[in-house]
Structure formats: structure tokens, C-alpha cells
């Protein structure tokens, strides 16, 4: 789960960095992140059984895919929101492309990217539960088991345990992410 989120963050930022200065590519990336979110996660998981079979792998692929979308979107917004004068000041004192990116643009876009990661963290919890359908690990197993035996003994309880578990996990993750924001957003740009 958390690993998926980290992987998604890395992928999303990479794509954003590569596309943000090229208008048509940035538009495309934005489009994909918007349309991607409308794909029902359940359908997506079903589709992944084809290439990846059952087990954790399709679950990881799907969760990472969905997790990357809000982060990508926010990374694009954050990076293009770095004022042109600031970028020019960085160029003007002789910073190269990579140094500009690492020491100026990403740190300045970081608060926006971080809020994307938090949205992603919430959303992905629900999707991860559904991923249990393809026999991935997690609390989703409780939910699916319960639903399939609905009306049977303790079936409803089992579903509730799964759902509450997911919600609690989501809250814990969000708290963690808030902590990470506090630690990684520099004081000069903290709201």
C-alpha cells in the first residue's frame, strides 16, 4: 500500500517534470489524469487479470496507476505555478536545468504535490480493498467474503469489520502523511 503510494509519487513526478515545459504533452498528461480517474477501479482490476493473472501483482499495478493520477495532476499544477521570474533568477545566477529542478522548482511545488499525495492516499485505500477481488492481500477479503455470504451468519459483521478497518487505516495513513508534510515543507513557504 504505502509502497504503491511511494512508487506512484516517483512515477507521477517524473512524468510531470518531463511534460510540464511542453504544452501539448502537459495537456495530454492532465487529460489522462482526469479521464483515468473516471475508469471504475473494479473494471480496471478485472482487465489486469488478463496480463498479470491473480495475486498481488495486478493489485499493485492498479493501485499504483490510480494513486499516480492525483499526484500527477498536482505536480503539474505545482511545477507550472513556480513564478517565471523565480525560474529566471535561478537561470540568471547560473543554475543548470537539473539543479534548478531539484533545488528550486520541486521544493517550491512540494506543498501542492504533497496535498496530491494525501488525496491519493485516501482514494487508494478504497481501491486497495477492491483489489482483494483478484486475490490480492488486504482487508478487502473480509468485505468480499461477507458480501458473497450476505444473509448468512456474521456476514454483515464481516463486511463492517472490513469497511471500518479500511477507514481506520486511511485515517492513520493521512496522519502519517500530514507528519511527512510538516517535515518536508520548508518554513519559508509554509502556509
Amino acid at each position, binding site marked *: 500500500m504505502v509502497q504503491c503510494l511511494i512508487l506512484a509519487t516517483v512515477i507521477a513526478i517524473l512524468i510531470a517534470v518531463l511534460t510540464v515545459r511542453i504544452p501539448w504533452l502537459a495537456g495530454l498528461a492532465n487529460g489522462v489524469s482526469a479521464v483515468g480517474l473516471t475508469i471504475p477501479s473494479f473494471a480496471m482490476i478485472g482487465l489486469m487479470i488478463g496480463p498479470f493473472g491473480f495475486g498481488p501483482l495486478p493489485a499493485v499495478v492498479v493501485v499504483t496507476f490510480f494513486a499516480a493520477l492525483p499526484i500527477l495532476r498536482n505536480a503539474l499544477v505545482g511545477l507550472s505555478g513556480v513564478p517565471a521570474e523565480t525560474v529566471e533568477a535561478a537561470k540568471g545566477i547560473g543554475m543548470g536545468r537539473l*539543479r534548478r529542478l531539484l533545488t528550486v522548482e520541486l521544493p517550491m511545488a512540494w506543498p501542492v504535490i504533497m496535498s496530491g499525495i494525501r488525496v491519493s492516499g485516501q482514494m487508494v485505500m478504497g481501491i486497495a480493498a477492491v483489489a482483494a477481488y483478484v486475490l490480492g492481500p488486504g482487508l478487502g477479503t473480509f468485505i468480499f467474503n461477507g458480501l458473497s455470504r450476505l444473509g448468512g451468519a456474521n456476514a454483515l459483521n464481516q463486511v463492517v469489520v472490513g469497511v471500518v478497518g479500511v477507514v481506520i487505516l486511511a485515517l492513520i495513513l493521512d496522519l502519517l502523511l500530514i507528519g511527512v508534510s510538516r517535515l518536508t515543507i520548508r518554513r*519559508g513557504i509554509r502556509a
Partner: protein
Amino acid sequence: MPEHAAHNAELDAESAQSAESAGNSQSAGGTEHGAAILLQEVTKRYPGQAKPAVGGLTLEIPSGSVVMFVGPSGCGKTTTLKMINRLIEPTEGEIIINGKDVTDMDGDKLRRQIGYVIQAGGLFPHMTVAANIALVPKMLGWDKKRIAARVDELLELVSLDPAVYRDRYPKELSGGQQQRVGVARALAADPPVLLMDEPFGAVDPITRQRLQDELLAIQDELHKTIVCVTHDFEEAMKLGDWIAIFDEGAQLVQYDSPERILAQPANEFVESFIGSGAGLKQLSLTRVKEAELSQPVTASPGDAASDVLSRLQGDGGRYAVVLDSRRRPIQWLTARQLSRMQFISDQVDQELPIVGDQATLNDALDEMLVATTGNALVTGPRGAFIGIIDVETVTQAITDARSASGESEAPVGLNSGAMSAVAVAATQEQEPDDALPMDGREA
């Protein structure tokens, strides 16, 4: 500060030689530290535009002098400036700094050797003041100790107390302070050339005037080659040794000293740019430090008020000026105020009418009018007190200045491709040395 210059070897290599050949009158004030810049038939064309943004501009910028680019917006002055550090790559032509063609050296390396100041400082909001200033030295691989010492030295230079401001973030500073840090960052690696793009456009008039004074005081110490873009002709007159007036397409209309542009505008365009009241603008050409200053009684916090009072009465002046440990004025007290206190306090009077010694008489008059006093306190380098100027002195100086107008041979600047191969050293024109009573940066 030659110890900071070592890494600038590439651009500094010929500075000694060029300083010599320049025979520059400013060498009297210290070592020559700037670099001569020559733009040789530089053209910038943007695709899809019929007219070039800059058309065949040849311009010589003498080492150690302040050259102001003025002109209407969109005239290409900023484009010209940015071609010097190659933020904008010229389409044609050569840019020669200290005899070295920089058009094909690595742009990032070049820019680390040229200070660059933009409006509002262009500071990075997520870095502290110290981290902002340390950027270029870090890229040049200085060790930590040297960087820390340099940061403090620079903060002192721009009149910010290192202990107070070092660890602040840009948003915790006023506009004027941000601009100061911007200047400090540009000077961090002691570059021979400083480029400024409308540096004081974003601050209020009084702060702007102080920043201008400070820049001149800094220039007095460091003798950089400064190229500064502005749309404000008053600012150009105040800061510039030479002013280049541009029209559309970076067509150079006049390139001369402020005095001569004022006295002999090349054409109607220049006249309209100078604006009406050119006579009064003479006020902007005379500097406070050329005027006669009076020396009042001074005191320090903690002195017994009665002592100071008796000294003041003995002196016959109106004010006793209280100076802090760095000789910066913090209050001025009349005999009446002194008679009511026991000891001099260390509180700082924010309303003091203070002008730098590089300020123009115009500024001094402004300051007196705002403070509704007939006097203003004059401060020198790093805010140290040097005397009091009064309104009579200002009016006298205006009268004296009226008739004076300088003869000078301006550096080369033209647009046609007619001039071929101008050697840098050969075109180093002398600064006007015929005892201009109005030019403040000499002697």
C-alpha cells in the same frame, strides 16, 4: 577583496591590464574591479517577427562604470541586458567581456561570474537569506567556512545585521530588505560585472531612494561594472556614469553622461524622454557629499544628558545627534529635549530624515520636506553618520550647479554595422576628469 576573485580567473584574467589601459580616474578610490564589456554588432531576431528586437547594436561599457539603459517599454533594453549574460542568446554578433568573446562559452558558467539582480530580488522563498546568498559560492565549490564568512560580510555590506537576518526567510523581510538580499546574492562570488533589471521598480519611492544611495555607496567600495535597466530617467541620472537611451529595436538614440544628455539632448525623442523641467533636474545631478555639511555635537546612548547639553550650548548648534556603536544616527535631540532627560536612551527614532552621501540634492530636499525640518542627517558607507545638510546649503548648491556642464567623450555606442573591429582596450575612454563639480563618483 582580491581573495574572492580567485575563482573569477576567466573574466578577471585581463582586468589588471584593462584597468591600466583605461587609465580610469576611479582607480584613485581603490583597485579596479570591474570588467569592460563590448557588444559588437549584436542582433536578436525572434522567429515570426519582421523587425529585430535588437538590431546591430555596438556598445562599449567601460570597466568600473555604471551604465544605465533607458527607453520606453518594449524598446529592447532588457533584451540587450539579458544578452550580456546570455539568458537570451544573440542571433548575431559578439559579446566581449574583458577581451574574451563569451558567446560560445558555457552559459551557466558564464552566469556564475556575472551578478544578476531582478525586480524584488528574485529570492527563493523556500531558502533562508543565508542560503539564498550562498547559492553561487556553493556552485563554485567554496568550503562552508568561507561561505558563512562571506554571507555575513555581504549582509553587512548591504546594511542588514547578519545575526538578525541570516536565518530569516524572504517572506519575513520588507520589499527593500528583499532587494538588498538580492544585491548581496548577486555580489556573493565577487563578480566583476553586475547586471540589474529594473532592480528598484517594486519598492516605494523613499525605500527606492535609500536603495539607490546604498548601491552607489557599494559601488564606491567595489568598482564593479554595472549595467542597469530602468524606465525612470531620474534614476538613470542619479545612478549612471553613462546613460544609453534606446528607442524601438534597441536603436541607440544617445549615449553620454547625464550632464551632457541634460544639456544637449540629441533630438526630440530624448527631450521628450527627459521630460519637462530639465532645469530642475540639475538637482538630481548634484550629490549631497559635494555640498557643505555641518558637524553637530554627537553623543552615544548612556551619556549623561547634562554633559551633552553643555556641549550643545557651547557649540551653538540646534541638535545633538545620537549615534549607535556603529556610528549610525539613531536620534537627534534639541536642547529642550536634553534638558528633560538624565541619560541618553538607545531608542531608535524611525522618523529621522536620513540621506546617504550619494543621494542627490533632490532626495535631500524631499527628505527635509517629508520630515518638515530644515535639515537632514547625512550618512556615508554602511550608514555611518558624517554630517548635517541644511536647506540653505541645498539652495546654494543649486545656484552653483546651474551654470556647470561637462565636456566629455562618451564611450562608443552605435547601431549601424559601420564600425569594424573595435578593440576593447583601444576604445576605453577616459572618464571625464575636467573637475566636474556635479559628478559625484570621483575624487
